[in-house]
């Protein structure tokens, strides 16, 4: 029990471990460099590569690729439809987050798990679903056609596809904030004579706002990037229903990687900016 002096133990340990220790170090460094190398080769290198590639044949070539009306119209269309889908999602998402957190009703847990379905479902399957539901020959599709509205292969279908794949983002960003929000804050507002509407706009909405913004941003960047669901339901007519990611795919297919790369870095840079804004918003939210 009493721990006596054991000089020999230390000496023995030291001698014994000189060899294992060196081997140990070697392993450690091997591991570290492997992981970092994997990371660099997989993530950093390709992104770096695409920027280099698109400028490799000079600015003029890059400018030419961008100046192609089909290209810039595709980018603009993507942004426009992405904004529409995001705005709809912000409204629906905030409402659903609110309902799922604040109300108790039958089926709540089921709905709550269903929120993640678009994450789990392959986007191509999502596109197929929309096609089946609204496509030519379907009940809804022919109904809409009779009324003179065209959905599939037109812009509404693209928005619906974007809506579907970005559905969970706002909900999942707002929910934790609502959960943290102390009901006492609301009650405090009531005791000070604030009306329900006033309380909502002055107390509840501000605390949800970081979630709405970062969730909306995430949804927007996902909408810009979406390909699988859209390619199946969009008509892909240049200038009208051709979005950026589909355009890039077309350029690759027609063996024009330089043109694809030029549009890609436009889209990429935009996404990186959004990502940066999200992390700034989140950091500010954490500090507050």
């Amino acid at each position, binding site marked *: 029990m009493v721990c006596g002096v054991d000089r020999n133990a230390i000496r023995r340990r030291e001698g014994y471990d000189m060899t294992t220790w060196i081997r140990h170090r070697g392993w450690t460094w091997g591991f570290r460099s492997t*992981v970092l190398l994997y990371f660099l080769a997989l*993530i950093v290198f390709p992104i770096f590569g695409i920027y280099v590639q698109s400028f490799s044949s000079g600015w003029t070539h890059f400018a030419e690729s961008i100046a192609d009306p089909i290209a810039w119209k595709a980018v603009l269309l993507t942004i426009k439809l992405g904004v529409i889908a995001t705005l709809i999602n912000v409204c629906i998402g905030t409402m659903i987050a609110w309902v799922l957190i604040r109300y108790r009703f039958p089926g709540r847990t089921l709905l709550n798990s269903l929120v993640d379905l678009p994450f*789990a479902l392959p986007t191509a399957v999502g596109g197929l*679903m929309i096609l*089946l539901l609204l496509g030519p020959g379907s009940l809804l599709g022919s109904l809409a056609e009779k009324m003179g509205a065209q959905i599939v292969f037109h812009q509404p279908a693209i928005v619906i596809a974007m809506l579907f794949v970005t*559905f969970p983002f706002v909900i999942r960003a707002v929910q934790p904030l609502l959960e943290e929000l102390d009901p006492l804050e609301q009650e405090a507002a009531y005791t000070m004579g604030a009306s329900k509407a006033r309380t909502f706009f002055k107390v509840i909405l501000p605390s949800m706002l970081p979630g709405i913004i970062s969730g909306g941003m995430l949804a927007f960047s996902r909408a810009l990037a979406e*390909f699988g669901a859209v390619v199946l339901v969009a008509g892909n007519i240049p200038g009208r229903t051709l979005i950026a990611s589909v355009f890039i795919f077309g350029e690759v297919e027609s063996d024009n990687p330089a043109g694809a790369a030029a549009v*890609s870095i436009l889209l990429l840079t935009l996404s990186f900016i959004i990502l940066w804004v999200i992390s700034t918003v989140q950091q500010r939210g954490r500090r507050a």
Partner: protein
Amino acid sequence: MRRLWIGLTYVVFIILLIIPLSRIAIGAFEKGLDGFMEGLLRPEALHALMMTGLIVVLVTLLNALFGIMMALYLVRANWLSRRIKGVLNSIVDLPYAVSPVIGGLMIVLLLGPDSIIGGFFEGIGFKVVYAFPGMVIATLFVTFPLMVREVMPVLQEIGHDQEQAAATLGAYGWTTFRKVTWPSIRWAVVYGVVLTVARSLGEFGAVLVVSGNIMNKTQTATTLVYQDVENFNVAAANGVALVLAAFSVGILLLMEWAKKRKDVQ
């Protein structure tokens, strides 16, 4: 008021999720069970499902392993300066911002037959792009952040103390990880695995660009669905799509379960 909101929520879910999901199921059985089996048992469908399965297994294994290591390094490493860790940390998120199509394009540009590296591999008889390795790399790229982002917050939360306590008690790195760190991050890892499986199962854009979508060679389940639709063979697409959708619902259930276990921890 309350009723109205709940009703609206139900309406959104039904229109956006439940009707489309059931439509796939109905579509798959439009021509009866035989039609469904026929669509599913085509040789190209079986091959595509096998490819998807292989990619899922390989990608999940690799990214789970490297993702956990990366998370450990980003949170714990004292051999990296804080600034470098900050930069690496933000780079981890980049694949989220990259459109899958662009991700695929990057790999074609870097490793395609016309590139230096691709040319070298081609020279030694190893095809990367328009072959299995390229598809795996594309999926690895897209799914890399998932595991890292699940494990990192848990590591940050449990702190360094228990691991240091283990060190003072004589445990080296591997023992400490196995006995002390692993039990705490276990459920986060399970959740990360489920997410990675879901994402690699459903990956479409990147794989489509990289694979060239060659039937019976580089076609995966999702690219087969795409090809069927392009060929106006919607009924056949439904069978494969239903299988994928069923997997997704299964994954969803797993996600719920893993999330609950994670919260308990």
